């Protein structure tokens, strides 16, 4: 795994009109790491994810991926390079089947180079095997021909997770994956995130469910009002008075 930096944010800034949603955030994610990103509502977590995957332009700062500046690249190019994500509010292709949702998302640089015909007509053998493995890993094999829009909530969350892995990402951005899940589902999510890391995927995890973050993340960064106020291991962050103030709502006077 080494200490290679997968993602570097330098002075990341995004203003919406007069609102400083993200204000000069520096953050580094090392290869094979699970970094938790937490903070109160409106602290800029989701905006950071949107900036990393290129949904809107930066006001200032730079995004480096694998050492290369990707700040100006469009979203689908970033996917081809190896950055994928899930959504806080599920955004599946409801009128496509489970299988098709995964097939249509196989868009990594390597997958795009596969032979033209099988890639367009039903998928190559390798691509289909990959989808089968994914369906099994996420326990969705029995639903493969069902329309994604007809799945139960928990299944939709799993499918979205699977879809984000379809393009073989090096960096996966999980935007509140545990929202609306019960304890058992969160446990499964926890183990899936760990297994993914074993397979070499680096994870940036945004989550309100503290138990999950504290358990699975190697390091945690804390945001408040668009700025990074703390960073470190779970125990260090938990005992940090600045973090406590941010969550309990007292002003820190900083």
């Amino acid at each position, binding site marked *: 795994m080494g200490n290679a930096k997968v993602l570097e944010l330098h002075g990341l800034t995004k203003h919406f009109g007069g609102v400083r949603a993200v204000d000069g955030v520096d953050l580094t994610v090392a290869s094979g790491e699970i970094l938790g990103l937490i903070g109160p509502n409106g602290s800029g977590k989701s905006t950071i994810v949107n900036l990393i995957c290129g949904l809107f332009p930066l006001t200032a700062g730079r995004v480096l991926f694998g050492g290369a500046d990707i700040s100006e690249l469009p979203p689908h190019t970033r996917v081809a390079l190896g950055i994928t*994500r899930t959504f806080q509010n599920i955004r599946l*292709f409801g009128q496509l089947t489970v299988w098709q949702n995964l097939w249509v998302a196989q868009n990594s640089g390597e997958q795009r180079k596969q032979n033209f015909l099988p890639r367009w*007509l039903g998928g190559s053998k390798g691509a289909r095997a990959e989808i089968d493995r994914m369906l099994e890993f996420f326990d969705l094999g029995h639903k493969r021909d069902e329309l994604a829009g007809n799945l139960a909530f928990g299944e939709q969350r799993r499918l979205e997770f699977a879809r984000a892995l379809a393009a073989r990402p090096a960096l996966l951005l999980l935007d509140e994956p545990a929202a609306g899940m019960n304890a058992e589902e969160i446990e499964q999510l926890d183990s899936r995130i760990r297994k993914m890391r074993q397979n070499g995927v680096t994870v940036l995890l945004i989550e309100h469910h503290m138990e999950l973050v504290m358990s699975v993340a190697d390091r945690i960064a804390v945001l408040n009002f668009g700025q990074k106020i703390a960073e470190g291991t779970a125990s260090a962050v938990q005992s940090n008075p600045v973090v406590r103030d941010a969550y309990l709502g007292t002003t820190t006077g900083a």
Partner: protein
Amino acid sequence: MDLLDLIDTIQSIADGVLFGTTYALLGIGFTLIFGVMHKINLSFAAASIGAAYASLLILSAVKAPAVVVFLMAAAAGGVLGGLVYLVGFKFIPLANPLATLMSTVGLLLLIDEIIVHTTAGVPLNYPALFSDVIVPIGPFNLRGDLMFVFVLGCVCMTVLLLLLYRTKLGLATRAVSQQPTASQLCGIGIMRVNILTFVITGVVGGIAGAMTGAAIGMLSPLLSLPLTVKGLIVTVIGGLGSIPGAIVAGLVVGGLENFFQFLRGVSERDLYIMLLLFAFLVFRPGGIFTVAAGRD
């Protein structure tokens, strides 16, 4: 109504249904573009007729068989589709709901004007296939040229449906129309999908234009406006965004059009089609295949 009248009525409805494939293709074109852009492309039918006109250019150079002319119409339609996207959509602010409506109306008028100026407004003959063939079935006669138009339309729709529902390109197109943001973040280049959709619908439109020319036996600049209206009617009756709906609505409108023409004459027939549209807008605004929506 005696038996002969009944036979004539059925005959004219059947002819109309055969020609209705043209309307179905036009409706599919409007619907597909609306699917990815969430905008109406009002220049679509005019571009389709324009493509048919462009295919006649080859006849002025060499004596080509009708099949080659049809292929030229399809190719010209694809090129025109791409141009319509570049001129009417790419640089137009999509957030403004009226901007592309104006730009495509502009393109509609522009294409019409180009046709009128290059042909001096005189209708041109268009080649047909199997126009001398008539297949008698019982008391009915099936016209060869209409049969060809019908078969070509069906082939075209089949290929299009396979493309949309079986290939990754088609799935990407449908993904973009369902979830534009998420599809970008699944690695689908929206711009590419948009251009391809315009080119493919342009090809379909070019074929529909050629089919119109073949069925009527000529092309006239007066065709583009009625075809635009028919295409939009078919799109609304079929349900905006529904391809099966556009197919069924195209055949129904084609059949009814001839039925009304037979009953009440050519000057009145469009009146009844408009009434049908009105009925759909009031009682079933979502189109044939959606659940009837009540008013708020």
